[in-house]
């Protein structure tokens, strides 16, 4: 009668194994790609063994007892009236307590190990907005080569050197001075999570700054998203971490330190004029966005300095591929139509204006 349930359990166990081996899930916590996620996975696996044992003892026990002592028709048996057994009680109080105590030893040491912030780690500040992520590279050697030499800033994609230890400082921004376009953007709690690289830490508005220390073993693209409910588009507040090899990293830093390219192509030039409102037309973009080396310096919306660079794979909460021209056009035409509640308003741009803006954005290599 209960075989069905056991089949289901067996199936479950097998699939759990499958998950742990499956390589094609981009957010698989059981397929870690760095030491932090690896440590966290190891601990889970360590607990799964005693858990599986308890599972077998209890469920197997219930099953065996249910079969062995089930009532059979026509047999009126009066079972012995067992009221309890003190030694057994003490046993099954102490035995689980010992198992748990043993589990807690590596748990506690790992808590402290993961809380350590190495002094030589590379510093990146992570900023959570509704609903996208911004990244500032605050190390002195990551200053830009223009303006007042502020940090390199990116949105939606964080680029890191593979193998290097990174120390993330998590802050929640938005609200107050940022709501320049009349659409409220609030400082709310987010949670920063790239499952294959590190477990999550919440991003708390106010004076609390949480940290995540991690590194990526190999170059590659790693997926992540906000894990704490943060309002309407919480489900689509994603990001990617692109880990580069040494040469690629060098190249990326050099490129990012430079100001934005000035377009040479006619259409892109028109787009730039529209972006800045140079000819009395447009100009809304610079109220929120910044482009390095230009007058656009607002910080309420993603930094677009190197929007079309190879590593900037996605935009608008990492919801759309940057190379997807149709998606970019749809976004500019009416952000709310493709992402309900998006803070960027519909400016009623004409198709020609959208073409020009897209050409400009694509010129920002």
């Amino acid at each position: 009668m209960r075989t069905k349930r056991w089949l289901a359990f067996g199936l479950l166990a097998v699939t759990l194994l499958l998950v742990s081996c499956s390589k094609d899930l981009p957010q698989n916590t059981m397929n870690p790609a760095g030491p932090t996620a690896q440590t966290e996975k190891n601990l889970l696996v360590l607990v799964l063994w005693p858990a599986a044992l308890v599972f077998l003892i209890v469920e197997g026990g219930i099953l065996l007892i249910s079969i062995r002592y089930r009532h059979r028709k026509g047999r009126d048996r009066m079972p012995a009236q067992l009221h309890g057994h003190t030694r057994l009680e003490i046993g099954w109080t102490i035995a689980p307590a010992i198992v748990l105590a043993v589990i807690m030893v590596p748990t506690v040491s790992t808590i402290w190990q993961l809380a350590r912030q190495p002094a030589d780690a590379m510093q990146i500040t992570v900023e959570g907005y509704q609903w996208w992520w911004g990244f500032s590279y605050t190390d002195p050697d990551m200053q830009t080569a223009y303006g007042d030499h502020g940090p390199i800033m990116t949105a939606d994609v964080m680029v890191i050197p593979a193998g290097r230890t990174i120390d993330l400082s998590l802050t929640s921004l938005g609200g107050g001075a940022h709501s320049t376009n009349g659409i409220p953007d609030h400082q709310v709690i987010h949670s920063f999570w790239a499952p294959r690289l590190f477990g999550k830490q919440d991003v708390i508005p106010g004076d609390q700054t949480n940290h995540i220390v991690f590194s990526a073993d190999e170059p590659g693209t790693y997926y992540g998203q906000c894990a704490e409910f943060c309002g309407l588009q919480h489900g689509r507040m994603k990001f990617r971490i692109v880990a580069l090899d040494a040469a690629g990293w060098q190249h990326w830093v050099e490129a990012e330190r430079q100001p934005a390219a000035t377009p040479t192509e006619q259409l892109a030039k028109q787009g730039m004029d529209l972006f800045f409102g140079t000819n009395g037309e447009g100009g809304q973009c610079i109220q929120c966005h910044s482009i390095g080396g230009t007058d656009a310096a607002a910080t309420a919306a993603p930094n677009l300095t190197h929007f079309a660079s190879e590593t900037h794979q996605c935009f608008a909460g990492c919801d759309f591929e940057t190379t997807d021209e149709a998606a970019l056009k749809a976004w500019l035409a009416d952000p709310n139509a493709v992402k309900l509640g998006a803070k960027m308003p519909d400016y009623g741009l004409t198709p020609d204006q959208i073409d020009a803006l897209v050409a400009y954005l694509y010129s920002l290599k």
Partner: protein
Amino acid sequence: MATAASVPAHRGIIRRPTATTGWLSWFTTIDHKKIGILYGVSAFAFFLVGGAEALLIRAQLAKPDNTLLNADQYNQIFTMHGLTMIFLFVMPMSAAFFNYFIPLMIGARDVAFPRLNAFSYWLFLFGGLFLYSSWFLGGAPNGGWFGYPPNSTTDPSIGMTFYAIGLILTGIASSAGAINLAVTVINMRAPGMTFFRMPVFVWMGLVVQFLLAFSLPIVTVALFEMLFDRRWQTNFFEPAAGGKPLLWQNLFWLFAHPEVYILILPAFGIISEILPVFSRKPLFGYQFVVFSGIAIGFIGFGVWAHHMFAVGLGPVANTAFGITTAIIAVPTGIKIFNWMGTMYGGDLHFDTPMLMAVGAVSMFVIGGLSGVTHAVVPSDYQQTDTYYVVAHFHYVLFGGAVFGLFGGIYYWWPKVFARMLNEFWGKVQFWIMLIGFNLTFGPMHILGLGGMIRREYTYPASLGLTFWNQVATVGAFLIALSVLIFIVNAIVTQLRKPGLENEDPWDARTLEWTTSSPPPVYNFEEIPVVHALDEFWHRKYAEDKEGRLIRVPAGASDDAPDTHREHAIHLPSPSFWPLVAALGLPVIGYGVLYSWWLVGAGALLAIVGFMGWAMEPPVAD
């Protein structure tokens, strides 16, 4: 008492009603059994609504990038699903069982404060309807049942204001009920019903009432602060003005973790009644089951921050709360082992109540084990806020609580309605529910470990988790089918004439089965005198020296009821006033949202209600 008796009968503002039958009597009843039925029916209705919301959630997640619901609708629906299942289904359904059976099981005629009992029920119902009225008044709560500020306090929709007021209302109802039932258990036990002769269900009821009484004030503070932040722009949780978002989380979970035990302990109590009856053996290790329940109640107040391991409390707090979370697994394990000990060597009758109870134990174990992985803090950094947690707490609260409650429904249905639910369809329901449940929530472990976050209204196909989402959706509809089978079973059963072939169909052990079915309004013609744990069983059976049972010949018990005393039993009359007073409070709630005039009107209504209540003569003239 002398002064009360000397109050002239006409002092009531309106005449005290007398009818105990007819539709109007349901509005004025102060009989704990009728109130229990009201609680049960209302809770079940909310269960259906919350279940429909669950189906919408699963339908939306049945395929990637689905557009069945948009983000706004989805956020409202998952919030209302959680609020409904916790505050409007499991809590009041447990209250239904406590109301109906605690007085019967301790040999009392009613609860300590019958009119307060009615007030609790009506206020719960009005609080629930108040919450649901938000759908028609600008949008339902959309910030999750956990309602984290600043998101919940800055959200422009009106929903979270309904959340704050609605939960304050149901919280008042639960607080009043908690005091009432705790006093009932402590003060109204029959002669000889010592604490350690009380059924475990009554014990768990007592623990739950204390948990409610101590945890609800905490969340009430938080809810008022949220209400002030939202309605009058105070800054309790607003970081830009120096408020602390984490203040809410600490207050909320300091309530909401005990709340988890408020939801599960009633089911533990029911399981502890069913297993001995259907094993024909006493509960194994009664004292250990009782004390582990009390221990869970105490430790439950010391684990709240395990909901906050990722908020950055620091390694000291994470270590401390990781350890307390591991500790609470110990008393929980004791319960499981004692239930197994109860079944061991028994004569197991797998009627539907037993299937449900054993199902509850087996499913709860899975939830308990995944709970232990949460105590492993660094591993929880990965699992928290993913579907792994959704799987965990549904194994605990559906696998444990809902299976347990259904066990109670099948077990006590003949007592309440004098009709047996159909056994065949009960078993069919159980197996479909068990399979559907595991199909729904089993895959969620995989989804969570595979990187699917909670509360996302859609997911891309590139996440690679479409298949298991589809399995979960199929499972959810199987659960719906099983509930449908129950509804049909219940309706068909109720269409039959009442009357039981056997007044003691399960060969039960506790006092409620010594009464007729349904019990008379006064419960016991003569208050029973209790000599032992499992009193009723011992009136039927004696044990020889080897612990073997010997049936006591019928009529040998000296507690045979005297049938001629009915006229001497004093019971309070029904009353309108609890309903009136309870109606005033949600009106105040609407007033806070819309107009000070409504606040005044609601306050007036409540004051009139409470005054009428206070001035009312104890019995109708």
